[in-house]
């Protein structure tokens, strides 16, 4: 077995680049041979300090092996200049220094050296140190690449998830046809969210509308929103809300592992009967009202995915011209302010009452403006809010 060599099952260094700087040709050859023996694939040389700085820019080494006493610039000065350039701040620089004499060792560290190798060269030690520092470079690089890849994938997943939400073109067309104002806001907490909402036409005077929040957040919750998006399309929208939720629940329950669940509310807006009919699986209480009064409605109901036999209750309230319904996820009522307080149900009702006084187009903005005024960012939970006003 070659000690410190490439055959010891460690990380391959064949893609690594090392610059050897020494004014003595014999030393350069010896050091170069040892570095190659470690398994480094690319070795470059410089015979003085100025040449070293020039070669660093062209060769872009992963590690520099630096002699101290050289013509033109000495090793300490080379090291100092490298460190003054932010793009070389993390470049491992190994300075060759005599074992005796604490001064030069202290000088090496002061100049910004990463580590030292003894001069005259001790092959075993030199090879071990070069290998350790290159392995560290490689591991950090791997980690960074992995991190970047995951971040990119999360970004594309976020874009895909945004695609599950009703497009503005659809909500605008529905609003026009049914004489409504539809305003919505969706904001995933850290990376991916577990919230989803949708609105669709049932017939010329009825619209179906749901809001759903999967427990937890992140990748698992987000994958569940894709499931739900598909499921929701398979249930006839004209079913009563309680039938609709029961059907979703019966399909979802076997798919969800224990501990995962969703809260959901499905509502039908009937502009001919002037009603809102809804059923809720433990979603936050919807607010229904008009310019003069707002009410928090009962939304108790077993969460989706908990019990296959769960049943739900239909509630019907009046929703005449001039009236509105406001749906939201619990991030709105439970997100903390810097003093540890949160809006809660009572605070929410006040906020909605105040916001209902402005023009329908500005109501949701009024809610969000006050919410974002006090809440700590970034949000720790996904926020969805939908305000639908009848003209």
């Amino acid at each position: 077995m070659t000690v410190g060599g490439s055959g010891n099952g460690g990380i391959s260094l064949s893609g690594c680049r090392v610059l050897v700087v020494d004014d003595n040709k014999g030393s350069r050859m010896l050091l170069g041979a040892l570095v190659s023996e470690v398994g480094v694939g690319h070795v470059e040389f410089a015979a003085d300090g100025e040449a070293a700085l020039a070669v660093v820019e062209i060769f872009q080494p992963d590690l520099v092996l630096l002699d101290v006493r050289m013509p033109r610039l000495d090793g300490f000065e080379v090291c100092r200049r490298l460190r003054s350039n932010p793009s070389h701040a993390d470049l491992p620089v190994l300075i060759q220094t005599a074992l005796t004499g604490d001064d030069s060792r202290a000088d090496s560290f002061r100049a910004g050296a990463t580590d030292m190798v003894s001069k005259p060269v001790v092959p075993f030690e030199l090879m071990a140190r070069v290998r350790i520092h290159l392995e560290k470079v490689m591991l950090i690089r791997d980690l960074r690449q992995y991190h970047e890849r995951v971040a990119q994938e999360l970004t594309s997943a976020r874009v895909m998830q945004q695609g599950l939400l009703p497009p503005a073109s659809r909500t605008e067309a529905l609003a026009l046809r049914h004489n409504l104002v539809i305003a919505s806001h969706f904001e995933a907490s850290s990376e991916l969210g577990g919230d989803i909402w949708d609105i669709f036409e049932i017939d010329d005077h009825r619209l179906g509308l749901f809001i759903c929040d999967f427990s937890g957040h992140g990748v698992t919750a987000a994958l569940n929103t894709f499931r739900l998006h598909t499921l929701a399309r398979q249930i006839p929208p004209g079913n009563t809300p309680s039938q609709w939720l029961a059907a979703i629940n019966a399909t979802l329950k076997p798919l969800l592992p224990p501990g995962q669940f969703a809260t959901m509310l499905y509502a039908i807006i009937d502009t001919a009967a002037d009603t809102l009919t809804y059923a809720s699986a433990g979603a936050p209480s919807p607010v229904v009202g008009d310019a003069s009064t707002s009410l928090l409605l009962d939304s108790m109901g077993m969460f989706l995915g908990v019990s296959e036999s769960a049943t739900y209750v239909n509630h019907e309230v009046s929703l005449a011209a001039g009236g509105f319904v406001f749906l939201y996820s619990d991030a709105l009522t439970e997100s903390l302010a810097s003093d540890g307080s949160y809006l809660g149900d009572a605070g929410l009702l006040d906020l909605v009452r105040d916001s209902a006084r402005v023009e329908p187009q500005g109501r949701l903005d009024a809610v969000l403006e006050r919410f974002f005024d006090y809440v700590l960012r970034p949000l720790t939970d996904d926020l969805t809010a939908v305000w639908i006003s009848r003209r």
Partner: protein
Amino acid sequence: MEHKVHATSTGQEVIMHGRFTFADHENFRGVVQLLDDPSAKRFVFDLSGLEFVDSAGLGMLLIAREAAERKKLQLVLRGAQGQVRRMLDLGRFDALFTIQD
């Protein structure tokens, strides 16, 4: 969330304090393992010291419920108040657990 475990004549009581959230996942796994005690017939979660529960906390209670159901244990949620009580009511936990004041 912090918790203390008391043995009673019929089973165990877990007294919970603070905020019960996603951060307690590891911690609560140990609590669920207590359900394996073969002598227990009844298991009580005392929630009177809990200030807040989020969806992950509720999910962990549901995990405990599934484990208890497999072992034919009675699971009691006791003393929930404020936001915690409202969450249990909202999700109709009365249909899933024995709820006590």
